[in-house]
């Protein structure tokens, strides 16, 4: 295959090869054979991963398997490159520990990680998430009932949703003390506005014909609300819940930077950075990532079950 054909048929691989050759050459010239070999290994893994994925993507086969396998190969490639780079170039573990060291640390400090998880995710994030979302739902129904409120509150809510709300964390820590209550309060404020705006928008997502049909059934306000408008609002509500789920975790962790008892993920991260125990920091990040993905995934599954009728859920999956 000529270079030109490679560029047009597989631009990504061509780019990787070009970059790899350049960097290996630079390593050979400026820092010796050892460094150049590490760079070579790095690019070999990267290009190998990409080729494997290209092959997987081009193969006729079950879409579901491919949607699972290709990201997995990509992730493993990244991890392998990380490990090779850190060990090969001799990066200090104080700056970036290799994935294997993080895995070892993770398995050794399970009790600490669990304690922090309970403090931050269960007590702080989850309770705040539930309170905030329920409050926003109720407010949204009230706001929706009165058009004047809707026209007044919605622009304000949109404005507040764009603000750096995380800034109120120090104030709420001052009001509610150092324990999880203040973190839950931060989460409540953070999730409230995105949830409110989405729900109000969703409650308006019924067509005149649907509302007329309810009227011909002689359905009152509450019946219409529960049988038509709330179900119709579900895609919007779940959109809000998804946004809120990531905000909740961020709020709970960042609020701990402003004061916390001697446990919690935010506390552990900020103190471990000071102690240069970066492997523990990364272990906490792994916990946060797993918790965040699980949280998001659970909401997505629930959404699939509740809004099975929506076009965005029907298009794929079978």
């Amino acid at each position, binding site marked *: 295959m000529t270079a030109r054909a490679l560029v047009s048929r597989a*631009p*990504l691989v061509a780019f990787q090869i070009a970059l790899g050759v350049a960097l290996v050459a630079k390593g050979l010239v400026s820092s010796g054979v050892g460094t150049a070999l590490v760079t070579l290994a790095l690019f070999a893994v990267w290009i190998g991963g*990409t080729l494997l*994925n*290209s092959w997987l*993507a081009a193969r006729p086969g079950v879409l579901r398997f*491919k*949607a699972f396998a*290709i*990201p997995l*190969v*990509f*992730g493993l490639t990244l991890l392998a490159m990380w490990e090779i780079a850190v060990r090969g170039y001799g990066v200090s573990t*104080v*700056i*970036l520990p290799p994935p294997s060291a993080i895995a070892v640390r993770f398995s050794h400090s399970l009790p600490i990680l669990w304690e922090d998880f309970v403090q931050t995710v269960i007590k702080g994030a989850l309770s705040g998430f539930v309170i905030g979302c329920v409050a926003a739902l109720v407010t949204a129904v009230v706001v929706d009932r009165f058009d*004047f*409120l*809707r*026209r*007044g*509150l919605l*622009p*304000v809510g949109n*404005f507040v949703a*764009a*603000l*750096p709300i*995380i*800034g*109120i964390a*120090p*104030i709420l*820590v*001052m*009001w509610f003390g150092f324990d999880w209550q203040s973190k839950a309060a931060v989460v409540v404020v953070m999730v409230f506005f995105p949830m409110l705006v989405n729900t109000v928008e969703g409650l308006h997502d019924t067509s005149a014909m649907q509302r007329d049909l309810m009227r011909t059934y002689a359905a009152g306000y509450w019946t219409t609300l529960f049988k038509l408008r709330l179900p119709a609002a579900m895609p919007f509500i779940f959109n809000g819940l998804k946004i809120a789920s*990531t905000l909740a*975790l*961020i709020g709970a*962790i*960042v609020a701990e*930077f*402003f*004061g916390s008892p001697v446990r919690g*993920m*935010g506390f552990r*991260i*900020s103190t471990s*950075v000071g102690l240069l125990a*970066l492997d523990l*920091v990364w272990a*906490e*990040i792994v916990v*946060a*990532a797993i918790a*965040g*993905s699980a*949280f*998001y995934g659970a909401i997505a599954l629930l959404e699939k079950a509740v809004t099975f009728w929506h076009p965005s859920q029907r298009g794929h999956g079978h």
Partner: protein
Amino acid sequence: MRAVVPVLTVVAVIVAIWYAAAVWLNAPWARDMAARQDRELGAAELVVDTWSQDKPKLPAPHQVVTELWETTVEKSVTSKRSLVYHAWVTLSATLAGFGLGTALGFALAVGIVYIRVMDMSVMPWVIASQTIPILAIAPMIIVVLNAVGVSGLLPKAVISMYLSFFPVVVGMVKGLRSPSAMQLDQMRTWNATSAQEFVKLRLPSSMPYLFASLKIAMAASLVGAIVGELPTGAVAGLGARLLAGSYYGQTIQIWSALFMAAAVAAAMVGLIGVLQRVTLRRMGLDR
């Protein structure tokens, strides 16, 4: 225009609630002080006192406004006590991160739209990357980058970049894919190269999506810059003002920094809104 009266009403109600809350939250302290001096506080005195404390639990709105006025207009801009100076420190990091994030997001989106393998391998990780609370590891990024000799603006910009690239990727992938099959076929019948197809069809059709994403990215970028200032030990910037205020119980300072952050966010998002209107009008896309 129809929205002005309701919005003003809502804002007025919020201010009224705020004043009432200030009385309620600050009253214990006021009563405490009065009891120590063997005085009885009348209702009017109590209200006046709660609205004019030095370190109130909740400062009254006029106290925050006074502080804002004093630290923006009455101080010289270069002074470390000037809020304009701190806002500029934060804003410069925000803009640097926003620029980097937009560029990265744009490049990733083009790759994802044009290269099938990237679509299938990178896209799930882009989404997964956002479930990691990056703000939580901001301190580590700052400290690590400091250790390798990168300090000042860049570490904060890196955090802002991480937060702002995601909305751009998602929006631009959607936008670059928004031309219909018929429009793409039309380009093909004109024998357009893929570069021409990109510049003349895909890029223009993605503009509305781009601006919507840029607004979100700007707000996220500001949050990143503020949080990025927390671990540097409260040197400069709005985040540093927040942290210093929370250390010393200077609630008025915290609130004024918050309001400044809100003003900066509103100004930046508004600026993008104006750009959006001008661009879309010139392209004939506004309705």
